[in-house]
């Protein structure tokens, strides 16, 4: 018992590396089970996981849509003709809120106060002029600070007004009929419903948020409670500790994400998911590994849970909002797009997810995204490992 040399460990070269690998895998498995037990013992975190993958996804998908709906329109009707009434009647829900009729003097104050995004001004004798083929004009005032609705809303209103005018003219002047017929078909989302998009993007956001918070918090908790030192006096190496945290927490998020995609997105929200779920989960596994590595990295930068919160929130906000999951990647300046594609795995995962789930792309198409995520993850992990040694063993 007091014998200092461990009896079971003759230093045989050759077999050492294989045995070493087995030992390390056994340690990893053991530590991963320990992490899973820790997660199970924390009801608050589990509640957060459940919330993030259910209610959170449902409310964002159904509540905050940036597609043009419920547009607030007012009409200044100085014609009061059947045509002007037909234009007002053409503004139907769900695209429009019922149009309000206001006087010309109210236009400025109402738009200043943001009560309406659109005001349609119909001049006197409008219908008569249209029928007589006289030159006349409808004016649409648009509050161009309502950036998500102004552009598309204008296009819809113009179409409705143009259709009504064309109908009025139709009986009289058949030559004016359109020479061609343009049929627009949207692929993979024929009605361009935004919930189809936001639900899946919200699943991605939840994966990012939870993996980063769970792994980082798991590391900080061990550092704060001193248990990490306890582990390090044992025959365990830092990379095993880090990997076990990524594996355990990643597994939990991945399982929750898969369930959420099938139950909440597919069944509750009724979004038809075109592609292969297995391929998506495989890609999500790579992504979870990368964001777990990011969580560990942040966990080595902050010293306390409080600091970790202050650090994680801006990082999470930037990675989410600049990932193409909120606004199109092509809309960002080229330099910013390059920066984000280099430092963050999220844009790659968003591209991957859109390809697989909406367009039904296969591995042959999406492999570059997978590779990019894995490469970024490897860099994160390498830096985290260096910092981990520095932080735990002193600078």
């Amino acid at each position, binding site marked *: 018992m*007091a*014998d*200092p040399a*461990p009896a*079971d460990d003759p230093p045989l070269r050759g077999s050492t590396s294989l045995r070493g690998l087995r030992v390390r895998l056994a*340690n990893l498995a053991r*530590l991963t089970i*320990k992490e899973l037990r*820790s997660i199970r*013992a924390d009801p608050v975190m589990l509640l957060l996981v459940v919330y993030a993958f259910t209610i959170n996804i449902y409310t964002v998908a159904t509540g*905050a849509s*940036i597609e043009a709906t*419920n547009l607030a329109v007012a009409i200044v009707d100085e014609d009061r003709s059947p045509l002007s009434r037909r234009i007002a009647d053409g503004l139907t829900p769900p695209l429009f*809120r019922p149009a309000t009729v206001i006087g010309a003097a109210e236009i400025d104050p109402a738009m*200043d106060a*943001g009560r309406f*995004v659109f005001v349609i001004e119909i001049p006197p004798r409008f219908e008569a002029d249209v029928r007589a*083929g006289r*030159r006349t*004009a409808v*004016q*649409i*005032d648009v509050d*161009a*600070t*309502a950036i*998500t609705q*102004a*552009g598309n809303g204008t296009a819809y209103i*113009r179409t409705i007004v143009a259709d009504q005018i064309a109908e009025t003219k139709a009986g009289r002047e058949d*030559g*004016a*009929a*359109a020479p*061609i017929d*343009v049929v*627009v*078909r*949207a692929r993979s*989302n024929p009605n361009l*419903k935004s919930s189809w998009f936001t639900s899946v993007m919200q699943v991605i956001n939840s994966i990012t948020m939870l993996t980063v918070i769970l792994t980082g918090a798991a590391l900080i908790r061990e550092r704060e409670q*001193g248990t990490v030192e*306890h582990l*390090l*006096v044992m*025959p365990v190496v830092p990379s095993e500790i880090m990997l076990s945290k990524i594996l355990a927490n990643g597994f939990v998020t991945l399982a929750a994400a898969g369930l959420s995609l099938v139950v909440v997105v597919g069944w509750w929200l009724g979004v038809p998911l075109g592609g292969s779920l297995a391929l998506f989960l495989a890609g999500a596994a790579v992504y979870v590994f990368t964001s777990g590595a990011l969580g560990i990295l942040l966990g080595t930068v902050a010293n306390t849970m*409080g600091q970790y*919160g*202050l650090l994680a929130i801006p990082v999470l906000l*930037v990675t989410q*909002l600049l990932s193409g999951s909120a*606004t199109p990647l*092509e*809309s960002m300046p080229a330099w*910013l797009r390059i920066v984000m594609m280099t430092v963050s795995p999220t844009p790659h995962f968003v591209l991957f997810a*859109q*390809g697989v789930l909406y*367009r039904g792309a296969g591995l042959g*198409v999406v492999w570059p995204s997978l590779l990019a995520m894995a490469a970024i993850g490897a860099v994160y992990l390498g830096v985290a490992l260096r910092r981990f040694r520095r932080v735990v063993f*002193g600078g």
Partner: protein
Amino acid sequence: MSETVVARLTGMSHRYGATVALDAVDLAVPAGRMVGVIGPDGVGKSTLLGLVAGVRRLQQGEVQVLGGDMADAEQRRTRCARIAYMPQGLGRNLYPTLSVFENIDFFGRLFGQGAAERRARIDVLARATGLDPFLARPAGKLSGGMKQKLGLCCALMHDPDLLVLDEPTTGVDPLSRRQFWDLIGSIRAGRPQMSVIVATAYMEEAERFDWLAAMDDGRVIARGTPAEVLAQAGRASLEAAFIALLPEAKRARHQPVTVRPRPDTDDATPAIVAEGLTRRFGSFVAVDHVSFRIGRGEIFGFLGSNGCGKTTTMKMLTGLLPASDGRAALFGMPVEGGGIELRRNVGYMSQAFSLYGELTVRQNLDLHARLYHLPADEIGSRIAELLARYDLADVADAHPDSLPLGIKQRLQLAVAVLHRPAILILDEPTSGVDPIARDAFWRTLIDLSRDEGVTIFLSTHFMNEAERCDRVSLMHAGKVLAVGAPAALARERGTASLEDAFVSWLAEAGGEPAPKAAPVASEAETAAPAPSSAPAPAAPRRFDPGRLWAYARREAMELLRDPIRLVFAFLGPLVLLLAFGYGISFDVENLRFAAFDQDRTPESRALLESFSGSRYFSEAPPVTTATEMEDRFRRGDVTLVVEIPPGFGRALQESRRPEIAVWIDGAMPFRGETTRSYVAGLAQSYIRDRTLERLGPNAAAATVEIETRFRYNQAFKSVVAMVPSIIVLMLILIPAIMSAVAVVREKETGSIANFQATPTSAVEFLVGKQLPYVAVAMASFAALALVSALVFGVTVHGSAATLTLGTLLYVFATTGFGQLVSSFTRTQVAAVFATAIIAVVPAVNFSGLLVPVASLSGGARVLGLGFPAAWYQPVSVGTFAKGLGLADLWPNLMVLAAFALLYLAAARLVLRKQES
């Protein structure tokens, strides 16, 4: 009520959940005396002191302090002004980044003292405690003993009639400990009317108190002068008396510790060797050329104050921390680079409990057994053996968090010896453990050393434990002052006890400044004429702008000295504004467009030109087959494809109204919708051009114009609207999180005790702490406005004064919201994430950032308008983009002010002046 009793407790009980901390305690604490509440950790001492000091809410029974009923808020408020309370933990109610002077000064301000009075009092107190050379040093950089002296200065700043000290000497070296008690003695000599109540776990220092109350399990088991207590128990020392006074069932478990002589081992290689071991952190030398040799099977004790380098030395021996200089070896094997093999020989127990609270006792043992790779068939029997030997079988399936400290320490020891290491390194294994459990622990250690030849290296604060070691070493300020057998060391210094020997070495090393022996308070009273000598000082004012300012000033100083929070406050919003301003754009451009022309006539090419000429589209190579189109959509290579059927040109010429198909990628609906509206626009203009071509210029007159006026943002650029909206988001997110952390931080570090124990009101506390964050948010707003103008070219078109006023009201509301959240959360993490989650959803989704409030209906609208962001968004966008002023926006400003007041009132209601 008689003045000879300073505090009277009647039938007082207190429980935390199911745990009973105090069980029907009746106690009359005599006035004008030095009263000790003694007993090990967890018997209810702190709870009792907290109730007497008024920082803990009374649950059951009655407490009269200084003749006032502490259950009554008004009486408590006036009594609190005459009480000083120093909570447990070294410097726990101090502010580590503030200097010694600033700390004491803050307390002076809380009691409404003028600048001259504060200065005079600080001078007297600092001289008396020997802190005067260190007035500029941050409290966090003081040694444990000095922190406690500083805590005492802060407590004495207002000449209290009752001084409540909760374990003031735990973790302090013997010399500092003596100095501390001498200091209290001289203060009492100068102010004999002052009563002192002290809690302590060190029985030996309790012997010099005037009156004692010994506690066990929430009950007072003995009371009276030390002589009376000793006589009652019939023992010579208080430690022995305490054990003798315990209930029969507990006492039966106790067996005295006998140290058996160590069998002779003449092994040439010592178990542990340190030679010139040194560790530096930056310029600070934590361990300075420490050398010792420890033989096999020896029990080696390590003594010294907190922060003297004991733990650092132990960490270097385990290989947790690399040495800056020197070397350490275990059994002749160097620690540095010893790696895995070395670790199998060492069992380590760190200072704080460091096993997994979320795993059961058995799971903890199992985890360690497997990580040490015990053979699988041995694990079960080894765990069973340890559970039996360390008396853990009853709690094998319990979680350590729910167990008393003594059992947790046994578990830690069981884990440390699990793999049968030859060396045990134990960092303060018995700190906070009751005497019976401590003795049991020591018997196990002696068995391990004597029967199994395990070398034990441990640190301790208890002198009677040090005397049981084979040899001890005294460490001070990183250096070893002496090494030797306990009896030999006392002989060497010619002192009666080991403690006296250490004190004399420490005094020689001269690390701690010795305080003056002169009585303190008499000096203070001559120097400070104010209310000090009055027997009953005037009741403190209910609302005092001075106290509010004291809090604001202190919070600002702390904030300015915390780089992480400062970076978050100033840089955070700017980085996010840049990222969002550039990143969140709803301008849909650069759409990849490909032609699928199956006609290839001049007519089809003319149509395609009108598409490829658009500034929104960038042209990709044309598509030639339907499968290629499928494939390129799948790869995300194209966003829209215009398919022209064969025979298009002829059909057009024959006015047969040919159909063309435009395919767009719907993966991203907003982009798809915008693409569709671009296509509609292009088709309309193409049709018009064709009509003009066919019917000639006369037709132009007949066309009805549909004119569109983009107001406020003629160029229709995203950035004009997004930047003011992002400012709305930044000024809620960052200030709310900052102020949320502010209150919770005090709860976590313990300085909230100063709010609880002084006459500070909740409004003074909240508003005082809020002001610095409002100032920071306004500075951050100025920076945001500057970046908007310089980087994005977005400037204020309306009234800048209205915007500034609106912003001020808005940040008062958002910081108030943060404080409201932090009034009901308990940890900083919870406060940060709760604030972020609660604030972000309405601020992003329902306040006009993405969807105009005018388009919201039902619950979303209520949710949006129930939050200040929706009211500030029109102010920000209105003044930046729409050119509005106060005349248009005053209703919004009124609502924002109402929000600010509402949050303050709600936080005031939630924030408790007392702990429950």
